[in-house]
């Protein structure tokens, strides 16, 4: 690596909008509020911002938001494809921009009326006008056409190879709901569930029950990235981006990489982990807490393996030992995650990871938190970031 971006950039501000099932406002307004509040959280002014990043999926133009919020001249803007796979990709783009001087203050945002507007759970059976219609055509005639069903296919294979997978899936859903029950911003605030509720929840696609699946949310999240230098003098202690990577492993299809030798794992995330660890000089032992993309419960298991917290096929044991709990080895998704806080395509996870490093999570673990992992959606090209305190 000729240029190492580790330590060059920092997250200075974060914000979420209110999360709901029906925001009653436009996606432009959600995005504007998240962006405004993240800039304010950083102690900056809208006119300080000169870069913006978002998802290709996002419906709101950068310049629309810039004009609404009163942002000044932009010298950098970029979009990342692949749905939730873009979550930390926004930070990745922003870090590269500030590390190279293309911009100094970059706002990363994502806002969607994901419940009251277009619902991703409705699958790809509708009129599909995108260029990947041919791709989905290999699956739709058989009825395999929802995100849950694609991930379930990997999961069944994982269950065939590993032990106690369903119990571990419950543990993940349950731990996260317990976090959410204590998070006033979470959709499922004060609404815990137990194993009987889990077992009785509606079957979606084997082996997924309703409570294995993330929700659909109206809301927005934003993150302000600036140089480590500038972040020093801002409102909150700088949260340094120590490592950040994007990866799409060979032989990949969007959500349906069913043709690799083994499918019960996430090779793209293996690559992202290797890159981020190399940049940062950190290893799994250095990571104190995590925000792991959780569209469905088992994807957390595979990512724990990718990032080296346990061996291949050992994640269920790791999880069932209580690792993800507040007093565990790796408190994870302390906001409730996308299963129980809100589904903002993982950007609310970047917000939470930042808060964990700052010591501001509503479920802040008792132990010292120096370094936090945050990841993007998997099954698609993905990525991850390692955030930590400045030394």
């Amino acid at each position, binding site marked *: 690596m000729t240029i190492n971006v580790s330590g060059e950039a920092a997250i200075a501000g974060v914000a979420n909008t209110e999360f709901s099932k029906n925001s009653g406002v436009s996606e432009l307004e959600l995005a504007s*509020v998240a962006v405004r509040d993240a800039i*304010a959280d950083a102690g900056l002014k809208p006119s300080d911002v000169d870069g913006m990043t978002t998802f290709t999926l996002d419906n709101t133009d950068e310049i629309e938001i810039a004009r609404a919020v009163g942002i000044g001249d932009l010298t950098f803007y970029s979009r990342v494809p692949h749905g939730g796979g873009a979550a930390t990709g926004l930070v990745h783009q922003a870090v590269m921009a500030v590390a190279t001087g293309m911009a100094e203050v970059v706002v990363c945002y994502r806002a969607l009326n994901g419940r009251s507007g277009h619902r991703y759970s409705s699958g790809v059976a509708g009129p599909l006008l995108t260029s990947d219609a041919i791709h989905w055509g290999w699956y739709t005639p058989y009825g395999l056409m929802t995100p849950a069903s694609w991930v379930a296919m990997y999961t069944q294979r994982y269950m065939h190879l590993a032990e106690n997978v369903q119990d571990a899936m419950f543990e993940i859903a349950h731990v996260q709901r317990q976090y959410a029950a204590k998070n006033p911003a979470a959709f499922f605030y004060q609404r815990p569930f137990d194993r009987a509720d889990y077992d009785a929840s509606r079957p979606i696609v084997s082996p997924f029950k309703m409570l294995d699946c993330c929700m659909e949310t109206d809301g927005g999240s934003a993150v302000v990235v600036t140089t480590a230098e500038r972040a020093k003098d801002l409102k909150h202690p700088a949260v340094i981006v120590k490592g950040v990577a994007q990866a799409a492993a060979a032989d990949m299809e969007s959500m349906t990489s069913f043709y690799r030798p083994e499918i019960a794992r996430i090779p793209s995330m293996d690559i992202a982990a290797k890159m981020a660890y190399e940049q940062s000089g950190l290893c799994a032992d250095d990571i104190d807490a995590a925000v792991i993309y959780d569209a469905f419960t088992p994807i957390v298991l595979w990512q724990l393996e990718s990032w080296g917290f346990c061996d291949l096929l050992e994640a269920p044991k790791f999880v069932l030992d209580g690792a993800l709990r507040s007093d565990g080895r790796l408190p994870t998704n302390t906001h409730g995650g996308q299963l129980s806080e809100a589904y903002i395509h993982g950007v609310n996870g970047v917000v939470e990871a930042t808060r964990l490093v700052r010591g501001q999570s509503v479920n802040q673990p008792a132990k010292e938190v120096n370094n936090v992992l945050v990841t993007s959606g998997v099954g698609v090209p993905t990525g991850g970031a390692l955030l930590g305190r400045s030394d």
Partner: protein
Amino acid sequence: MSESLVSRIKPVLGLDNKWWWDQAAEGVLAIQRCQGCQSLRHPPRPMCDQCQSQEWDFISASGKGTVCSFTVLHHPKFPGYDYPLIIVLVELAEGTRITSQLTGCEPDEVDFDMPVEMVMQRDADGFQLPYFRPSQ
């Protein structure tokens, strides 16, 4: 002015702009006003770019203004519009700008800074939108 059988392309109405077109339907040329700092803005947006407030109301514009710029459309011709079509960018007396159509005026009579006033145009299908004409 001839009435076309085909109607003009209508604006898409969303949460941030429907109220403005509803006002136009009532005959009002509305200008959004920030309740935080009183600044005016157009076209409508959910947040004030001066003070970032989301609170707003609107004022009814006087309809008086001057031509800031203009263009005359000849080609291509879309059904539902009358050509040559004079499109003006009007600097309203209140300070905001609005893009509209100029009526009651030949293309070669339009000029910069020309005083204009708003007239509500009602299409055959009932759709109402503000036009401008030379001040009388």
